Every structure is written in C-alpha cells, then in structure tokens.
C-alpha cells in the first residue's frame, strides 16, 4: 500500500459541512449492526476488511465528485457533504468491526483537529466512548479466565454496564470490599492477537515499496508501531507504567494518577482507583474560566515534562479521553498503557533536540539531520526547509517568553499544514522513536488548543529540565 493515497484523502476532505440528524441515525444504525459482530481475528478476513476501506472511501468520493461536477452550487455542497459523511461512516464501520489497530489509528487521527474535517473528527472521537459494548455474561467469563474468579466474587459491587469504552476494551465501575471505588478495564477477547494480525497485514501491504530507498527505515518505524500497539494490549505493563508515573508525579498537587490494584489485575484486566471528573468536552461545555483552563493545561504540561526529564519516559497517547478534569481543579491522568521509555541512544537524540530548541543554529541542523537519519542534509533542499519549519513550529512555545497562546487557531493550523506538506513531499524518514514522539507533540498541542490554554510553557519546561539537571 502506497502511503500517498492516505495523505490525498486527508487533504481532499472538504473543510466545512453541516451535521444532519439523519446522520446521527445512520451512525446509531451502524453501531447496532456492529454490535452483532465480534472482531475478526483471522488474518485474511482482517486483510480483506482493511483492503476494502480505501475502496469504500474511493467509491463514496468518486460518487460525490460526479454529482458535484454536474450539479448547481448548492447541490454541489450538499453532494460533498453526503460523500464526506458516507466516507466517514464507512471508515468508522470498518474500524468498529476491526476494533484493533485500525481503531487506534482512528483515535490518533481524532486527536488532530483540522487535519480532518470536523464531522470526521467527531465520528472518530466517538470511538473514545462508543465502541460496541460487551455484555456482562461475556465479561464474567473473561474475568474468570484472567483472575480465576467472577466479578461478583472479586468485587463487593460491579456495574454490569460499561461507563467507558475504547478500542480494545471497556471500563466498568466497581467497589472493593473496603468500599474503595474502582474502575475495571477489561479487554475484548482475542484483540491482542488480532492487532498482531493487523500489523502482519500492514507489512504485506507495504511489500510493493520494498525497493524504495527508505524501505529499511519504514520497516523500523513499523516495528516501533507494532511494539507500541502490543504494549497497549498488555495491562500488566500498563499497571507498572501507571505505578511508576504515580510515584513520580505524586508531589504535583494539581495532578492525580489513579492507584493500581494488582490483586484485581492481569494482562487483560486492569483495576485502578476510580477518579470522578469530567472529560474534555464535558469540561469545556461548562465554559470554564481561562484561569481554570490554564491550571489544567499547566498541570498536564508539567506532568509531561516531569516524566520526560526525570524518568526519560512519555505517554505516547495524549488523546482527550485520557484526561479527567476534576471538580477541585486537579487533573486526572489516565491510561498509561502506551508509555515509551528512551534507550541511551534515543536519549542522546532527545538531549540534542533540547539543545537545538535552546540554541538553534548548528545544533538545530545537527538535530534535524540525525533525527531524519540522514548522512548529510543540504540546508537549501526542500526537505531541510520543511524539517526546519516543522521544528520552528514545534519549538515556538519553548522559545517564547511568557504565556504562549495555544488557543491561537493559526498556530495549530500552521503545524497541521507543515506536517501535511512534509508527508506530501515524502519526508517520512525518521528515527523510529519519533513515530510516537510526534504523536505526543501533536496530541498535546491539540489538547492545549482545545483548552484555549495560555501558559508559560517555556518556564515549566525549564523548571523541570533544571530539576533533572538538564
């Protein structure tokens, strides 16, 4: 599969469309149908479903294109809206069915407002909370298989209906015998192996590119993605990351990381302290004051820099579903399933990036060359210019004195444009660790943009760097 069509779809999506009620009905209908399907774990079945996604998108768009070309202006807009909606619906349908790696991809895309048109982002965003649910009898068997006893035996109370769902599992409220409220995350049966099958498919689909000069680097990046996704299916690993993050963030008054209950956890079941708070959209719906939004933004930023600089680790998935806005003004950090720790070589690259963000000039050129894994980089080449522009954009908040306005639409739009251009020009070569670093950089900026945050990003970063002796 050539990656170019993906970029083409993204850039060809129309920008503005009106939501319609029948679309909501169509979505509900789709979810009902999806609820009748289990995730297919056979490799060829999954490959078929993946392969038909582009076909479905293409059909929806070509139909829309024909109608738009021969219709009046008003009809053209309507046809575009319909084609757009159909494409999004088909994409969501395929993702809901596969539930695995592809759904994760949908969630990642939803973190990038303006890369995709609003309706698509909203659709993808529903994956954070509206994946087809598992019923209690199935959960019971999953828990019994994992923990050797049923939920009724393990918990004093267990709510049979999930209160949150994601791509690879769903979360239930429960109560321990001592009265502690907990959140129990339970994974879909077979999803870990299904994800591995998806990734094997991705390698097969990429085979036609194997003679390209960046083939080896592409495979390294795919290995990085594979490793990250596999880690996300291992809740024991997530429990360890969560405990580690909790231990190192406990000093931050504005941050809460839930406790893990190891005796009620396994590779496929994770029990943590239940935090009560609002998710991003609910929080923003209350029209919170700038001061409160900034407080949350500062807490999220400081926690990120604290883990990055003192633990050499970061959460690769800063999607909005992983943050809770507590009534007392603190921020809850959830889901450490996709953390990444730097090895010595990667950490050296990060240190070089830090120096480049402070000094610019030769350090910046060297940082970019090494991050792109190039022997040499002509400073006047389009690639060098694109990479420098992207770095300038990324590091702007680190170089800005005083509060930086993350809510500035132009700032985010510029980053998305630079990222898109870089992809269009085929500049995908990079050190594998940047696959998730970029996800984190963009994800955090998208989150701060949604919060309309105005915080002194540089001051927070420098305080945390100094604390770690950087």
């Amino acid at each position, binding site marked *: 599969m050539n990656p170019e069509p993906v970029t083409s779809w993204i850039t060809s999506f129309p920008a503005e469309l009106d939501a319609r009620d029948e679309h909501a009905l169509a979505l509900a209908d789709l979810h009902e149908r999806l609820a009748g399907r289990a995730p297919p774990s056979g490799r060829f079945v999954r490959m078929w479903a993946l392969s038909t996604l582009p076909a479905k998108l293409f059909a929806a768009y070509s139909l829309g294109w024909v109608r738009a070309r021969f219709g009046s202006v008003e009809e053209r807009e309507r046809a575009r809206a319909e084609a757009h909606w159909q494409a999004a619906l088909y994409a969501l349908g395929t993702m809901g069915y596969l539930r695995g790696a592809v759904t994760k991809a949908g969630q990642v895309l939803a973190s990038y407002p303006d890369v995709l048109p609003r309706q698509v982002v909203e659709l993808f965003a529903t994956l954070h909370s509206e994946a087809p649910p598992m019923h209690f009898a199935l959960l019971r068997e*999953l828990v019994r298989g994992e923990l050797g006893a049923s939920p009724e035996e393990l918990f004093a109370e267990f709510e049979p209906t999930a209160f949150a769902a994601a791509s690879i599992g769903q979360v239930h409220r429960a109560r321990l015998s001592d009265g502690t409220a907990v959140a129990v995350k339970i994974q879909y049966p077979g999803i870990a192996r299904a994800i591995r099958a998806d990734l094997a498919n991705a390698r097969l689909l990429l085979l036609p590119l194997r003679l390209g000069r960046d083939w080896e680097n592409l495979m390294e990046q795919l290995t990085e993605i594979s490793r990250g996704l596999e880690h996300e299916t291992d809740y024991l690993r997530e429990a360890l990351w969560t405990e580690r993050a909790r231990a190192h963030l406990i000093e931050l008054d504005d941050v809460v990381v839930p406790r893990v209950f190891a005796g009620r956890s396994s590779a496929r079941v994770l029990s943590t302290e239940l935090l009560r708070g609002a998710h991003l959209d609910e929080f923003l719906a209350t029209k919170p004051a700038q001061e409160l939004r900034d407080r949350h933004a500062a807490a999220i930023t400081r926690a990120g820099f604290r883990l990055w600089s003192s633990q050499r680790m970061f959460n690769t998935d800063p999607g909005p579903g992983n943050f809770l806005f507590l009534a007392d003004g603190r921020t809850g950090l959830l889901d450490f399933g996709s953390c990444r720790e730097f090895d010595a070589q990667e950490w050296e690259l990060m240190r070089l990036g830090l120096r480049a963000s402070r000094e610019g000039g030769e350090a910046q050129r060297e940082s970019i060359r090494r991050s792109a894994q190039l022997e040499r980089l002509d400073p006047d080449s389009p690639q060098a210019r694109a990479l420098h522009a992207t770095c300038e954009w990324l590091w702007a908040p680190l170089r800005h004195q005083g509060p930086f306005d993350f809510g500035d639409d132009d700032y985010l739009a510029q980053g998305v444009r630079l990222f898109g251009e870089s992809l269009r020009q085929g500049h995908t070569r990079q050190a594998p660790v940047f696959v998730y670093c970029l996800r984190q950089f963009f994800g955090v900026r998208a989150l701060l943009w949604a919060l309309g945050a105005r915080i002194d990003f540089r001051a927070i970063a420098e305080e945390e760097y100094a604390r770690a002796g950087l």
Partner: protein
Amino acid sequence: MRISEAQKTEVRERVLAQARLLFARRDPARVSTREVASAARIAHGTLFNYFPTQEALVLTLLGADLQRAHARFRARRRAGAALEEELFALVAAELEELAGARALALAALSALGPLADAGGVAAELRARELALVAELCATHSSAAPPAHALHLYWSLFLGVLSFWARDASPNGEDTLALLDETTRLVAQLGRGTPRPTGAQV
C-alpha cells in the same frame, strides 16, 4: 435373583462414577465397556442392562453435566439481560461445567450431530437443551421462536462445543469471541426481529 430399584439405582450411579473417572484419565474412545464394568465391580454383560452402548454412557454423563450447568445458569440469571446475553450465559455455564471433561464432550459430539440416531439419550439431551432455549426466547418475545432458530442454535451449539474442546487460545478467548458472535446471531432469529433490542448488547 431380583434386585430392588434402590440397588439398580446404586449400580447405575456406581457405573457412571467409575466411567467418569476412567474418561477423565483417558480418551473415552480408548476405554472399553469391559474396563468400565470391571471398575464398577459388575459383570460385563450386566453393564448393558443399564447402558445399551458406550455412547449412551457418554451421553448420560454429558447430560448430567449439562443439567447441573442449567441449574447454575438459572441461579445466576440477571434481571434485564438481553436474549443474546442469556444465551451466552447458558452456554458459558455449560462450558464451565464441562471444563474438566473436554474429551467426554468431544466423544459425545458424533452422537449428537444431525446424522445421529434421533432417538434415545441423544434426543432427550437435545430436547432438554432446546426447551430451555425456547423458554429463554419466549421471555424476550411475544411469539414462540421459529423452529429453524432452534435448529440453528443446536447446530451452532455443537460447533462451539467442538471448537472449545480443541481451543488452545489463552483462557479460551477465541471460544468466547465465537460464542459471542453465535449467540447474537441466534438471538436475532429467536426474537423473530432483525435488530437487537432490550438491555445492553
């Protein structure tokens, strides 16, 4: 010498208990009726007064397991559960009961399939299972389930049983996924409507 009903029952139970022990240690296909009779301390010929074939013996044991599972399922029924959940819970309880008797279940399968003799213990076992499924369908729909829905249930039930008996996936998660899909399909037919309704599905 005539023997009392109580003695007959005692011998029958002893045969079943010894057969279960032997089948737990070895594939039932490799255990002879002579071995069963010997373990139960009765003459080989006497065994056939109680169980005309080894197949009948295997099915009787399976039937007893399934009846215990049905009782457990009834005790655990959850108010407000949708039909697909109830069907899933029923088969899950059966698989839980059969957990230590996979070989027994496999041995029974050939006697339960569509080409098997319609009479005898197999027919009783099938009728008991389908009566319970029909009862469940009836509690979720005003109309009785169509006959083809019950037939399909039975075919799929045997398919799940066969899959489960050989499933090597971690904690049998592939069986759970298959059972989930199967019971959703049967529930749609059993309700007589194309769409799932009711509580969480």
